[in-house]
């Protein structure tokens, strides 16, 4: 026992842990040197002289301690703050047991005390750093929240874990073991002293493997560690927060870690270790990068209008996806159904061009064409295997670009660094492809629309006709520059109802009514009206409007084309006047040619009248008369006078230079008058004019005199032709007939020798007659054409020639008007 007591005392004195015995009333019975040293007392006696209560920083703690001692006899790991000799506090972990006497009375307490101040400090620092870490994580999370919902969820989970950890008061070891953050301790010389479980998981090394090894050389292979070690020097200068560095795992993978560190020094101020806290940012960074990639792509594609530029942007973005380093974009040729290479990156053009074609017989290709993305090891495609090997490709990805469910393009990407792509990279590729689908469709649609718009703009701005767009409610909504030239007003002044101001006052009502008629139905309006320019000029315009498309609110957009026809109207008017004047001149000239015949025609009744009168006189003088005979003679005289008067009236009408007047007329009556006028000439020339007038022929709307002139011209020409025959065999026929539902035809035939071959009788100044003007037929034709009819040679040959002309039959409206 004595020896044991000695042993005990030597152990008591030698152990590095403070040991003591104390009484319940608070006296220290004994204390070992370690405790004296720990509490920094000069010697054991001084310590023992100090009441136990004074050793506690907080007196309540002693009370709690004593209470537990009395209740449990043994108290383990009771942490308290002790007051040192110099008054400074230290953290102490105490364990004690109660020594009882035989009656169970408390004799004394025996316990140990361990200075845990350093650990406590470490824990505090850990706590503090964790706090700051949490803050930076929060900030980062907030940042990322904008970018990625998925990440936010992930971060929320992490926050939850961290909050749960924070909720626990006793977290030091839990933090060490369960924290998702890497925690490590690195000695000043770079030796790894500690690494937690998270560190093991991340790096792929076990704690046993790492401890004692140089941290930098382990995780920064090759020459990387040299740079990092230099950096480490900077670390030594102070604590580091949120410094990002990538380390290489055991598997050779680079992981981006955000480091925070605290430096620990010994009492001399010498750096003893660096405590590092690392958060693995790799996944987040990758996700972030992919998100950023997509966002940037999205933003850069937004304003893109050039297809190829867009495709290049997409391709560049795609090549930034982790693991993807080359590829090409192919666009479906609608005509051939083939994918055609548009642009490529980092592969030979031969390979890129052939890639789509090489795989065209593969099932994989069919999947792509069917809209499914495929990811294949290069060896899975026999047809492209050799080519892949030449290019050094380890895997291929083919992602179809769809629009409205149909493939319109495809991304063929390859990797030289990986055999397969991680899920997020795949998602990124597919998201990019999705984005490209929309963009491609939009760019194409925009290009098509721009082309259309550009065409319309060019057409509209350079068109020599006015173009207006408008609807029933808003009036005119667009007018092209030509409208300014036509109306003499700015486009702005034509908008809405503004155009009405430029319409001639006499035409505006009719035009408004015409426009109103177009509002109810799909009605094409075609009308001529006058436009008054501010400078006083009046222009004739021809407007033609049509419905363009059904608009919302049941409004039809209408397009109007407005043509300045002033010159044409002027020219038409001049031509009409010219034609009328020429027609008149020709009539007068014709009459001149016919003068002798006409004179004969007049002389005939006049002579008859004279003879009757003289006969009467003679009979009356002789007294040799009979009343009945005389009355008969006088009646004959009156008849002859009427005949002469009627003829003169016809003649006067024929040569009168009156404004042509269209009236509803009986074509047979017109032909009859014409024949009467040429009858004397026919008689003189021994030509028999046969009439075949259809009684049921419809009326026509014509200028009677001009049509009569045409008939006379044709009949006289026919008589000329017939005169090649001997007298008595000269036949001319005039026929009227309805030849179509709404057409009346007049035919004038002769039995002459036919027209000379290749003679253009309608050419002005063409004539077969020595004294002909050569104007008769051209004028006749222009008259007929002015009546919307045609004048033509129906037949010509050895047995004669027939000229015919048509006239439109009068409609019901004409009869009403007539």
């Amino acid at each position, binding site marked *: 026992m004595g020896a044991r007591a000695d042993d005990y005392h030597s152990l008591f004195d030698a152990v590095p842990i403070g040991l003591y015995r104390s009484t319940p009333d608070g006296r220290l019975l004994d204390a070992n040197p370690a405790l004296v040293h720990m509490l920094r007392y000069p010697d054991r006696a001084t310590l023992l002289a100090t009441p136990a209560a004074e050793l506690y920083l907080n007196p309540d703690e002693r009370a709690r301690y004593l209470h537990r001692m009395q209740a449990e006899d043994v108290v383990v790991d009771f942490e308290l703050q002790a007051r040192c000799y110099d008054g400074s506090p230290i953290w102490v972990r105490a364990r004690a047991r109660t020594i009882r006497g035989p009656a169970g009375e408390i004799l004394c307490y025996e316990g140990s005390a361990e200075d845990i101040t350093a650990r406590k400090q470490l824990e505090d620092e850990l706590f503090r750093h964790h706090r700051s870490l949490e803050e930076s994580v929060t900030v980062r999370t907030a940042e990322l929240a904008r970018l990625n919902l998925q990440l936010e969820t992930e971060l929320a989970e992490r926050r939850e874990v961290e909050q749960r950890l924070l909720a626990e008061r006793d977290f030091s070891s839990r933090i060490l073991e369960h924290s998702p953050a890497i925690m490590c301790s690195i000695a000043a010389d770079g030796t790894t002293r500690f690494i937690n479980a998270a560190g093991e998981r991340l790096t792929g090394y076990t704690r046993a493997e790492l401890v004692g090894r140089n941290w930098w050389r382990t995780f920064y292979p090759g020459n990387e560690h040299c740079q990092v070690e230099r950096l480490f020097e900077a670390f030594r200068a102070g604590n580091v927060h949120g410094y990002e560095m990538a380390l290489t795992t055991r598997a050779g993978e680079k992981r981006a870690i955000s480091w925070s560190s605290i430096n620990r020094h010994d009492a001399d101020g010498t750096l003893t270790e660096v405590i590092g806290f690392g958060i693995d940012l790799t996944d987040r960074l990758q996700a972030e990068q992919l998100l950023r990639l997509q966002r940037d792509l999205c933003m850069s594609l937004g304003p893109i209008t050039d297809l190829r530029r867009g495709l290049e942007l997409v391709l560049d973005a795609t090549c930034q996806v982790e693991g993807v380093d080359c590829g090409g974009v192919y666009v479906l040729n609608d005509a051939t159904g083939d994918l055609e290479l548009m642009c490529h990156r980092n592969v030979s053009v031969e390979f890129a061009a052939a890639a789509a074609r090489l795989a065209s017989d593969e099932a994989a290709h069919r999947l792509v064409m069917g809209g499914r993305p495929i990811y294949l090891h290069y060896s899975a495609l026999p047809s492209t295997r050799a080519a892949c090997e030449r290019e050094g490709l380890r895997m291929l990805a083919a992602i179809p670009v769809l629009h409205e469910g149909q493939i319109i393009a495809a991304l063929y990407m390859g990797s030289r660094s990986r055999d397969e792509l991680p899920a997020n990279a795949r998602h990124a590729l597919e998201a990019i492809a999705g984005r490209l689908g929309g963009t491609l469709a939009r760019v194409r649609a925009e290009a098509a629309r721009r082309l259309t718009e550009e065409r319309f703009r060019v057409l509209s701005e350079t068109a020599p006709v006015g173009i207006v767009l408008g609807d029933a409610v808003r009036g005119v909504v667009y007018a092209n520059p030509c409208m300014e030239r036509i109306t003499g007003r700015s486009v702005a002044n034509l908008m809405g109802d503004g155009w009405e101001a430029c319409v001639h006052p006499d035409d505006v009502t009719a035009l408004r009514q015409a426009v109103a008629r177009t509002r109810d139905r799909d009605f094409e309006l075609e009308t001529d009206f006058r436009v008054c320019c501010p400078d006083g000029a009046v222009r004739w315009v021809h407007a033609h409007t049509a419905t363009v498309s059904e608009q919302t609110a049941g409004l039809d957009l209408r397009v109007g084309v407005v043509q300045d026809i002033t010159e044409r109207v002027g020219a038409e008017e001049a031509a009409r006047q010219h034609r009328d004047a020429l027609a008149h001149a020709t009539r007068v000239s014709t009459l001149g040619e016919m003068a002798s015949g006409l004179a004969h025609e007049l002389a005939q009744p006049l002579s*008859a009248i004279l003879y009757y009168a003289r006969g009467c006189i003679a009979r009356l003088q002789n007294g040799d008369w009979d009343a009945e005979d005389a009355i008969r003679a006088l009646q004959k005289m009156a008849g002859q006078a009427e005949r002469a008067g009627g003829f003169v009236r016809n003649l006067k009408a024929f040569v009168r230079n009156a404004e042509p007047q269209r009236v509803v007329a009986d074509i047979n009556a017109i032909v009859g008058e014409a024949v009467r006028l040429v009858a004397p000439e026919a008689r003189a020339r021994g030509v028999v004019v046969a009439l075949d007038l259809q009684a049921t022929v419809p009326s026509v709307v014509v200028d009677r005199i001009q049509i009569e002139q045409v008939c006379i011209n044709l009949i006289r020409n026919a008589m000329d032709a017939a005169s090649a025959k001997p007298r008595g065999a000269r036949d001319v026929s005039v026929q009227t007939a309805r030849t179509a539902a709404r057409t009346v035809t007049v035919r004038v035939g002769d039995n002459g020798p036919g027209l000379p071959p290749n003679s253009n009788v309608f050419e002005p100044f063409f004539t077969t007659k020595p004294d002909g003007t050569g104007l008769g037929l051209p004028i006749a034709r222009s008259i007929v054409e002015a009546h919307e009819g045609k004048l033509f040679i129906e037949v010509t040959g050895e047995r004669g020639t027939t000229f015919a002309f048509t006239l439109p039959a009068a409609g019901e409206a004409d009869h009403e008007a007539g």
Partner: protein
Amino acid sequence: MRPDEPTVFVVDDDEAMCEALTWLLESQGLSVATYNSAEDFLSAYDPARPGCLVVDVRMRGLSGLELQARLVEQGCPLPIIILTGHGDVPMAVRAVKAGAFDFLEKPVDDQRLLERIRAALALDAERRQAALARQLALMRLQTLTAREQQVLDLVVAGKPSKLIAFELGIAEKTVEVHRQRVMQKLEVRGVVELVHLVLSLERRDHGPT
């Protein structure tokens, strides 16, 4: 209307004109026949009928000028008065050259027309008279014997009886007897009348009418 009564033949395709002319001419006591075409007239006309022809230059079928030409061909002696309209003067000139009696421009003054018609009728009558006389003379000429014909020819040639007797180898006395007989047969009173008669017959035989 007697067949030998001089008649005014009117050819005009204008019926009113025909009627009016008839009315006028009949008021002057003339006999009138009207035809509506040259063809009608040609088929109906008997050259023996005296009178004159009034024809319009312009007609359906044959014109006035063509009718004239036909009549000339047939040797019809009717004097033709051609009525023309305004401006037909060249045609009228041709007609006159071809032997028309006259041409008148319409409207024709009725007095002038009547005067010309009467003149034409007179001419026709005169011609017919002359023709008659000539016919008579020819008939008488045919009654001469061959010797009398020989003597006549030599007398008309202006040869004296003595020379005629010498040429024919007969006695002068005999010539005188033949001459007397010729004069008796031809009903002429002297040599002058005889010569005139023979020459007029010869002219009719060879010269134009």
